[in-house]
């Protein structure tokens, strides 16, 4: 049973999701530590699939490990590294292990990673992968061959309302919804007016689609400049960078920037919760969650 689906469809509670840190070292002990830190605050957490085009412990293996340790995964599948056979195999594998939340993404390009010489796949794109998940939910593979028992996937996806062409981002999300997506996590962004326009446009047509904007917790202005310069699809206006950079206490200024972003996003139509990326800054995460009115273990 997907607790994430229950919270979205059965309750009015706010949905908080996060990113599970990549696993390159520390083995299962590290998985356990991450689970202990995240489980009190989040209903479900993303098990990523080679984030930023870097190889890591796989999406399916991390999702299984999270589940074994008691944290509900949202298993991501990215179109960059796998053809349609491998993507369906990931889905069937998730089904075998009782993983119900899956998120389908187009994915960063290989040039964003540390092995830019690799072959990019993109045999499917994001909306097609969502549709394939819906096909599996109906009990067959893409070919029509039976899959039994059929999965009961809660299908998620992502969108970046901050990147051009801005007006078209709403139509694209509606297409993803038609393909079967029920929840959309958004890219990190620093243009509140773009977020407002996007949420209003989506909620006006599909009010049942759960929009989950993302907020990143940082400790100084440096990561803002880094994201602006290096992360595809993220632009940070100079006045936002200056606000943090010119403060006498950068950590405090960065925290208040994030808190304001959270409060702003939560008040928008269609928004059912937030996705928090925190780069392992434990104390700030707890402070943020408490400032947003949360107490530990509210979902249990």
């Amino acid at each position, binding site marked *: 049973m997907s607790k994430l689906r229950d919270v979205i469809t059965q309750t009015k509670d706010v949905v908080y999701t996060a990113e599970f840190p990549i696993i390159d070292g520390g083995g299962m002990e590290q998985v356990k530590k991450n689970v202990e830190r995240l489980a009190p605050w989040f209903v479900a957490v993303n098990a990523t699939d080679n984030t930023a085009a870097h190889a890591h412990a796989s999406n399916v293996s991390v999702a299984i490990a999270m589940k074994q340790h008691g944290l509900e995964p949202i298993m991501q599948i990215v*179109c*960059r590294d796998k053809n*349609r056979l491998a993507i369906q195999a990931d889905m069937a594998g998730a089904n075998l292990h009782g993983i119900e939340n899956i998120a389908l993404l*187009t*994915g*960063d*390009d290989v*040039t*964003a990673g540390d092995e830019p010489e690799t072959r*990019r796949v*993109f*045999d*499917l*794109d*994001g*909306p*097609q992968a969502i*549709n*394939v998940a*819906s*096909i599996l939910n*109906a009990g*067959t*593979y*893409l*070919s*029509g*061959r039976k899959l039994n028992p059929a999965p009961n996937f809660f299908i998620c996806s*992502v*969108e*970046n309302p901050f*990147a*051009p*062409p801005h*007006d*078209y981002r709403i*139509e*694209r999300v*509606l*297409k993803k919804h*038609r*393909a079967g997506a029920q929840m959309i996590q958004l*890219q990190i962004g620093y243009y509140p007016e773009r977020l407002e326009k996007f949420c209003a446009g989506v909620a006006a047509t599909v009010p049942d689609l759960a929009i989950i904007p993302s907020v990143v917790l940082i400790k100084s202005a440096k990561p803002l400049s880094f994201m602006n310069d290096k992360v*595809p*699809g993220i*632009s940070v206006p100079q006045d936002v960078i200056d606000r943090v950079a010119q403060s006498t206490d950068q950590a405090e200024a960065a925290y208040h920037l994030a808190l304001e972003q959270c409060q702003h996003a939560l008040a928008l139509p269609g928004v059912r919760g937030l996705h928090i990326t925190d780069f392992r800054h434990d104390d700030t995460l707890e402070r943020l969650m408490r400032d947003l009115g949360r107490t530990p273990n509210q979902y249990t």
Partner: protein
Amino acid sequence: MPKLLNLLLAVEHGMKKPVWDCTMCGQCVLHSTGMTCPMTCPKTLRNGPCGGVREDGHCEVKPEMRCVWVKAYDRKVSLPLPTVWKEHYNDLRPPVDMQLKGTSSWVNLITKRDQQTPAGWAKRQEETHSH
């Protein structure tokens, strides 16, 4: 007949290569994508732009190139294209059929070969459109 097919293939490629940098995917969707070929997107995305489009509207992978889908959307809005073409802009286009690579999309259009999709896909499209 094969001679005619080869001729069509040559004419199609000769026309589309210089204008759209056509890669002969054999399942042309130009009319529904603002007369912009999605196969020139480095990720070959047929259902809209990825999340990596730069602030200036250029491509994540090739910074010197304007995003194919930024261009497509501009053209869809501004070009005097037939309404029926514009209506198809937001269609969910199926995964590329790699078996059609190098064949003539004109022939595949006439024979309706380009409308064939895997059984699971076809069934879902039928169900979602009948609602």
